[in-house]
């Protein structure tokens, strides 16, 4: 199967050039930004007329009902955008029975920067589209955090009012989760996984392109909620608990609808990953020869496919309650408020693992390469990912220990929550054992990966406190939880995203990043992160609730320290951005394999050829055979691949 795909690709690749320039009317009717310019306003007009027409036909007052219009706009305008940019062209030709255009691969690969701004079916282009987009939203959401910390530096209200503050932390969390961490991992996976398994691309390249373009839509919907008149951005937290969410101003709909687009994007990518990993591995790559990043994305994608529909449903129910006046969550008419939390967390707890497992995979790749050692206990590492996947579905109600649900559920959920620490612990101990007797190179990716291990341990351990029902009754909904989530998602997920970006930067751009700036970035982040988030454990336990714009004066001093540190943490991002932009343009040319890694993505040029491999790789061994002389992961015809080396005799290392 894979062989056929590659051969056709290769044959056409030879003749593929830039697409013929469109002329005349074709320029505005063909897929692209010119078509966006007229189709998006047209979609807006159609949506508006549809709502106004239906309301006037049915005699509803008032005609201009913003809630209903927002729903119509956030469905129809994005669809018209996707159609205009060219997301559906090929399928529409096919569905309507017209002859599909012969595949000229004009939509595949990047010849200039312009190719990153159109529908592109190359997984490498899509991976970079994902990463750049997600970093944009990371910066936007980070700035919101800076505004919050400015307000919180002193007790009382200084810069923003309560409504703005509630909007800031709600949009901050939603963007960080749905527009940064989840899709940033999808972006890294998109770039790396087909290369790692020896495939020419993802299984469904057009679906892959479409799933990327859903992402900016979701982000812009959430961001533009600030523009909604009377109330502004959604302000019920990213958890959007009812009845608050139902009672809120119209901006809340922008969360409900934004999540749908982000969720659809996630599900499409996850299906793509699953089919790609299952069917497109190179000959010889059995499941037990897959790099752990591939295992991690396999587990993550399964979680995404099974869990994401629940968050979509939870937000649709709120939207129906608001717009259609259903009563899912109206207790006066038999609705159930706590039911919302069950549905929401049935996604949103697995989502924590969706945001963590790919990071586990990245850490395994980076630590093995820079310790020059095989991953310790490879099979148990893979199996513990699967254990987390299964257990991850049985712990959701630990977010609800004080919610008023049936008290007995707390006990089984506490047990599963604590037991999930076991596979997680296995991973941590195995990473440490991988360092043992290694030859450690503390490059920037390795710094972030080892920083991740220690920070994630703190986040995992504070999770034990929150898993224990009696302690959670005290700590729930306080700053202790804020500290915990940031140790997991910042010290955990974000550190591995940074590790991954630095690690694959030479492969993606063909240039080396600046190592010195990378280290400065790491240390600023590491120190700033700990001073920002560690004291939050203390203020939380002492009695400061989360999600407050104002707090009791006794927490003033620590909040001041936290705010100052958070500004330093924010500034460290500038070092990262500067390093990335300048190195991308002017960094030294990267060799194909600067890290002397064994995995397949490093056995091709940097950046790789359009269809990744000129020859089908033959996988012959484990991806981590460092320390064994001559051991190879794969053989590529006609080209040498990296091999393991024998270690120096014991004793020589430390002399």
């Amino acid at each position, binding site marked *: 199967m894979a062989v056929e795909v590659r051969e056709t690709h290769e044959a056409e690749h030879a003749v593929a050039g830039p697409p013929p320039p469109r002329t005349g009317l074709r320029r505005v009717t063909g897929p692209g930004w010119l078509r966006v310019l007229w189709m998006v306003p047209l979609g807006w007009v159609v949506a508006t007329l549809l709502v106004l027409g239906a309301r006037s036909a049915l005699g509803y007052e008032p005609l201009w009902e913003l809630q209903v219009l927002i729903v119509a706009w956030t469905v129809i305008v994005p669809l018209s955008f996707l159609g205009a940019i060219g997301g559906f062209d090929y399928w529409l030709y096919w569905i309507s029975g017209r002859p599909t255009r012969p595949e000229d691969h004009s939509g595949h690969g990047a010849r200039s920067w312009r190719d990153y701004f159109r529908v592109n079916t190359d997984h490498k282009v899509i991976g970079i589209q994902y990463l750049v987009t997600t970093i944009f939203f990371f910066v936007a959401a980070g700035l919101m955090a800076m505004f919050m910390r400015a307000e919180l530096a002193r007790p009382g209200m200084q810069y923003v009012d*309560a*409504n703005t503050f*509630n909007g800031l932390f709600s949009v901050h969390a939603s963007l960080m989760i749905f527009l940064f961490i989840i899709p940033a991992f999808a972006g890294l996976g998109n770039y790396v996984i087909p290369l790692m398994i020896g495939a020419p691309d993802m299984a469904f390249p057009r679906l892959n392109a479409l799933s990327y373009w859903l992402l900016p839509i979701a982000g812009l919907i959430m961001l533009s909620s600030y523009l909604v008149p009377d109330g502004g951005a959604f302000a*019920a*937290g990213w958890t959007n*608990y009812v*009845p608050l969410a139902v009672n*809120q101003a119209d901006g809340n709909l922008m969360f409900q609808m934004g999540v749908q687009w982000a969720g659809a994007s996630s599900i499409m990518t996850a299906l793509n990953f699953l089919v790609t990993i299952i069917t497109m591995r190179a000959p010889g790559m059995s499941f037990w020869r897959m790099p752990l990043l591939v295992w991690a994305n396999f587990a993550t994608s399964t979680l995404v496919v099974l869990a994401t529909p629940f968050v979509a449903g939870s937000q649709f129910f709120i939207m129906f309650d608001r717009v259609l006046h259903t009563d899912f969550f109206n*207790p006066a008419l038999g609705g159930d*408020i706590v039911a919302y939390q069950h549905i929401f967390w049935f996604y949103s707890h697995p989502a924590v693992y969706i945001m963590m497992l790919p990071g586990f995979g990245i850490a395994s790749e980076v630590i093995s390469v820079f*310790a*020059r*050692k*095989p991953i*310790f*206990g490879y099979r*148990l590492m893979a199996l513990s990912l699967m254990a987390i996947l299964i257990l991850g579905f049985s712990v959701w109600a630990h977010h609800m220990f*004080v*919610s*008023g649900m049936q008290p007995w559920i707390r*006990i089984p959920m*506490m*047990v599963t929550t*604590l*037991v999930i*620490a*076991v596979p997680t*612990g*296995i991973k941590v101990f195995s990473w*440490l054992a991988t*360092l*043992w*007797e*290694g*030859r*450690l*190179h*503390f490059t920037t990716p390795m710094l972030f990966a080892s920083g991740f291990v*220690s920070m994630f*341990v703190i986040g995992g351990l504070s999770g*034990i*406190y929150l898993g*224990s*029902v*009696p*302690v959670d*009754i*005290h700590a729930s*909904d306080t700053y202790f939880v804020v500290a915990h989530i940031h140790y997991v998602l910042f010290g955990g997920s974000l550190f591995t995203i940074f590790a991954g970006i630095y690690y694959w930067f030479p492969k993606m751009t063909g240039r080396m990043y600046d190592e010195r700036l990378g280290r400065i970035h790491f240390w600023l982040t590491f120190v700033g992160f700990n001073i920002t988030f560690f004291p939050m454990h*203390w203020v939380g*336990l*002492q*009695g400061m*609730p989360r*999600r*407050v714009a*104002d707090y009791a004066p006794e927490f003033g001093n620590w909040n001041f320290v936290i705010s100052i540190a958070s500004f330093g943490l924010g500034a460290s991002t500038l070092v990262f951005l500067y390093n990335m932009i300048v190195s991308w343009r002017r960094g030294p040319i990267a060799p194909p394999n600067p890290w002397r890694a064994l995995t397949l993505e490093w056995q091709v040029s940097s950046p790789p050829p359009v269809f990744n491999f000129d020859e089908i790789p033959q996988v012959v061994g484990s991806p981590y055979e*460092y*320390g064994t002389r001559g051991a190879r992961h794969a053989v590529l015809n006609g080209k040498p691949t990296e091999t393991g*080396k024998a270690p120096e005799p014991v004793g020589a290392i430390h002399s």
Partner: protein
Amino acid sequence: MTLVGVAVGVALAIVAVFIPWLPDAASEQADIIDTVYWVVTIICVVVFAVVAGVSAYAVYKFRAPPGDTDDGSPIHGHTGLEIVWTLIPTILVTGIAVYSGVALAQAEDLPPDHRVVQVNSEQFKWSFTYPDIEVEGGRPLTTGELVVPVDQTVRFEITSKDVIHSFWVPEWRMKQDAVQGITTETTVKPTELGTFPVVCTELCGLGHALMRSQAVVLTPADFEAWVREQQRLAREGGAVQGRDLFVAQCGSCHILEDAGTQGQVGPNLDEALQGADADFIMESIVDPSAEIAEGYQDAMPGNFGEIFTEQQLEGLVQYLQEATGGGG
């Protein structure tokens, strides 16, 4: 290596124990929960010390010299070690789970001689109803701050009129969401006299941060005296009581300089009620939707006319009139 780990562990444990992580413990439940907290802390500190110790040692011992191109030892695993680090955490977390379950049952144990207090929540205020204390007019006593006697278990029956709120007194440790449509419950046996903050911990909207009140724990004799005082005030009313009522019931949403309140959900009353007459103030309280100050939403609860006794309402109006310079 083990020695380094142990040394780091001991050092961390000392630091962890000497930091006062938890606020004063003022209830029986607090003592139970704090014990669980410290047991978990000791286990976690040991685990973290092992991880930190091993990492620090590895970074120090196995760092490659510059320019090194060799590989480390080809160690693929160690079944014995892998079994050990699966089993030990399993035993630890099982222990924590069992102990937590037992502690939870103890904390929620309800002796037959308990007292019941209803906790009523709405955007953005708390009120507390004592079903067994009757005041003028045969209705149960309702107050804006919580007052309970020491050393008697209190069963809190918690309800919400609107969105979810969460009832928490940090010094008591116990916390419970208030959910519209159901009555949730929590149990506290206060063991220390004093005044403690009541905090809303579930995001409930604009006034969430200021949705606070106080819990006052009195000796049984003082509690009886307080009950009699409340019954007298309900009969007689007056501006002094009006100020207390304002601070407890209105302060989380309104600024009033005289009362020292800083809520910003509703209009600043120093301005909005400046020079207002008693009828306007009364209407603003019992029928707040009748006239909405410019720039504000129709967010004020409309049921103060039912919650407050007539004496309380009159006292409140009298106080507001005096504080804002109108009439009196």
